[in-house]
């Protein structure tokens, strides 16, 4: 159970947006999904997930709506807004550049 690094913490927004780009989800399901995709490498506590969601919503990247969940209860579902989708694309592109550069550097050192 190592603490997630700052870098990973900073990319939490990106991960959330990516998950929401696939389909609208409620908070709990997003948390499950995060754990599921990243294995247990990225330790995102459920506690920090919700503030992140609310911040993203305040910034206008995602929007929320109360809907009936799969187990017939009211749950708050988040989805991407059109500006959020564009934002995700830009962020993905810059992430690709960054990670490409970093892994190149890391490989260089390993030689």
């Amino acid at each position: 159970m190592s603490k997630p690094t700052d870098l990973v913490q900073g990319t939490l927004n990106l991960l959330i947006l990516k998950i929401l780009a696939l389909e609208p989800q409620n908070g709990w399901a997003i948390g499950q999904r995060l754990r599921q995709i990243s294995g247990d490498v990225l330790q995102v506590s459920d506690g920090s997930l919700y503030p992140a969601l609310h911040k993203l919503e305040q910034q206008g990247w995602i929007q929320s709506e109360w809907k009936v969940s799969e187990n017939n209860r009211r749950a708050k579902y988040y989805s991407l807004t059109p500006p959020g989708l564009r934002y995700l694309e830009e962020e993905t592109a810059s992430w690709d550049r960054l990670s490409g550069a970093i892994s190149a550097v890391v490989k260089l050192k390993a030689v």
Partner: protein
Amino acid sequence: MRWLFKARLRLRSLFAWSAVEQDIEDELQYHVERQTEANLAAGMNEREARRAALRLLGGMTRPKEECRDAHRASWGMRLLDTLMRDGKHALRRLVHDWQFALAAILITGLGIGINSAAFSAVNALVFTATSSAEAERLVSLYQNVGERAEPAGVSYPAYGDLAAATAAFSTVAAILPGTADYEGQLVFAEYVTANYLKMAGHQVFAGRWFTGDEDRLGSAPAIVIGYRAWQTRFGSDYRILGQTIRVNQVPVTVVGIGPAQLASASHPALSADFWLPVAALNTVGSRHQLPDLLTRRGQLAFEVRARLQPGVRVNQAQAMMNVLGQRLAQDYPETDPGKGITVVRTDSVVIHPGEQDLWVKLMSITLLITVGLVLTIACSNLATLLLVRGTSRAKEVAVRLALGATRSQLIRYLLTESVLLSLGGALAGLVLCYWTLHSIAAIIPFSLQLRMDHRVLAFTFALSLLTGITMGLAPALRSTRLDLLPALRKDAAATEFSPGQRWFTLKNILLTTQIAGSFFLLMGTAFMVRMVASARWQEPGFAVQGVALASLDTHLAGYSEAAAARIHSELLRRISAVPGVQAVFSSAGTPVGSHVSREIELDGSPGSEAARWQGKLAWAAPGYFETLQIPVLYGRPFRETDGPGRPLVAIVSESLARRVFGTTNAIGRRFRYGDVERSQEAKTAVEIVGVVRDAEGASPGGGGPAVFYLPAAQTSAPATTLVARSSGSATALVQAIQRELRTLDPTLPARVRTMEQQLDEDLRLWRWALGVVGGMSVVALALAAIGLYAVVRFAVAQRSFEFGIRVALGAGRHQIVWLVMREITILIGASLVAGMAISVVGLRLASSLIEAPSTVHLEALPGVTPLTLLSVAGVLALAAGAAAYFPARQAANGDPSVSLRQQ
């Protein structure tokens, strides 16, 4: 697009914070339940499953708080959040102190409401757009006059030349805006050429417009009623069409109802009550009853509007008019000295470019001064209340400061309170404004379209914010600057109002402002009352009692010039035979109100600028001075022998004689008169045969009236008006004249009225302005009294402990009252002195600004007399004294045991 999502959330967290809280709570709750379910499914027992779920979330409190923070993240949000909290708190306090809040809201409401109403008027005058179709193709045409070639009106003959310029304009119309009498009310009537409607691009609402025939002199007068007048004066009744109504006592036939959208030609915010054909001027026109209005090139009385030919631009039209102007200067060198013609797009003209119309000027001056003063008084009133309240809250403020609140936080909070109050005042003000506009619409003689549009709302809102902040700031600064210890130890308020303290406190300055301001307003009212009274009831310089006037229109009835002269002399003979009639004459124009300004110069001195004067021409006749009882000082009055073919003579007023000849006895001197526009050659030389006492046309700026009288028989002006003076009542004389007229020719259009009615017509506008200023000063006086009352009440309430002790120790009631009144009396005295000083200076300034129309006869203005000063001071001192006395007596009558226990 993104801001849309953001804004929605911001608003939600601002105004529905509890819903946001609930959302966070529900969301986290759902998460825990869902996780618990999952844990149960994984085989945990119920208690363990829930605890594991909560652990994974990190407890409920921390994420909740972090989510809340996410909502308050931005700077603006934090500020708004504090403002909201301050606002809610302030609102609770104000509801608790509802009496104080109500008083403050009413006071600011009064000040703001009156200002909004005044702004609406200015708004209507400045911002109302022309309503005509294709307004950008409409131009206004002006003939230029004077040294600087300023645009003035257009003469009727020149209108004909303009209308002939078909290369530039498709339609050219002439309009003469004026007033008329309809059933004793002053209405707004426009005399227009028949093509006016076509030029404006409108259709009549019902009936028909004038035909071209009705432009010609001598046709039966037809009238078109304005749409608004039709609604307000005729109850939207279609049966009025075809009926005969009396305008200026002359019967006219209603042929149509005008278009609703067509505003007055003189201003788009005004609407005309009546439209009459230009030809009706000679019959129906009252104020404009100059015999030569339609024929003389020197009378630039008309407004001319034109619609540009398709494809012609304004500058092209201007070029064509330059050519026309030159041609007119060649053709009519006497009357058109080549100053040119100005073409302006109509929608770019607010009021006539060169014109300084009396009522616009009068209205704006009185409105600006009075309304501004009322607001100042209301504002200082609010500030006083806040200040008094601040001192009574000194303890609360001290506690807050001691508990660590910063001064800026406290000031912010106090400002929130005062802004809330002034916003409440703005709401009350809008109600008042709405009500005022409705009553103004009912009072003023014109149909001015006053609306409360977005500009008025914005103005009101801005004004209330300004009021709240500026008026709240000083008291807030004052009440947060505290010595903590004494304030906490004992009620600081008690020291604030104890006698023998500093005099130049904020409170005293504010009170002085209020009382001095109302003093000025009251003086203004007294000033205007005197002005109107002097014009109406004091000696106008000529006879009013028992004098009646009869204006005949022989032209309309189809009389030849000789026949007209015969009927005039026959009527003259018959009226002089009426029992009680002492003197009578018949002349051109009305003896009051129809004087024309003419340039005069000494005969034989080719006019340098210094040897020229402005004089007012009045047409007189034998019997004129006897009838009007104007004393002849030197020489003789006009005689029957002063006729055509005889030496040309004139009689001048003593002021003119003194000004032009340097001596009152100017008998035998000669002068020449002409038009303002006329060149030297056209001037007519006359010899002075008499000098009469100043009678009419004095201007309030000082200086007697420079009037010269000519015998109508020696001018080209035919007789139009008969004036008679009887030893009996003027009303009986009017009836007698009407009787004689009926026997002479029952079909002859005539307008008979008393001299008093004639004078009243000219004074109505002044009365209206008087009403405005008077109303304002009453409001201001009430405000100042309320302010004083509030201050004394609060001050007394704060000293109730001290009074309790004094009464307990044996002080009498009157001693307590005196204790309070002493300070107030000194304050009132100081305020009155300040008020007097402001009034003397202010009114001197005002009287130099206000220029009476030549038709209103004012003696050289009274200005500030000691009597008015004293009576106004008396009224104010009484009101202020009463406002202070009652709370003081109330305090003295209080039970000391109660007031002592309260502290």
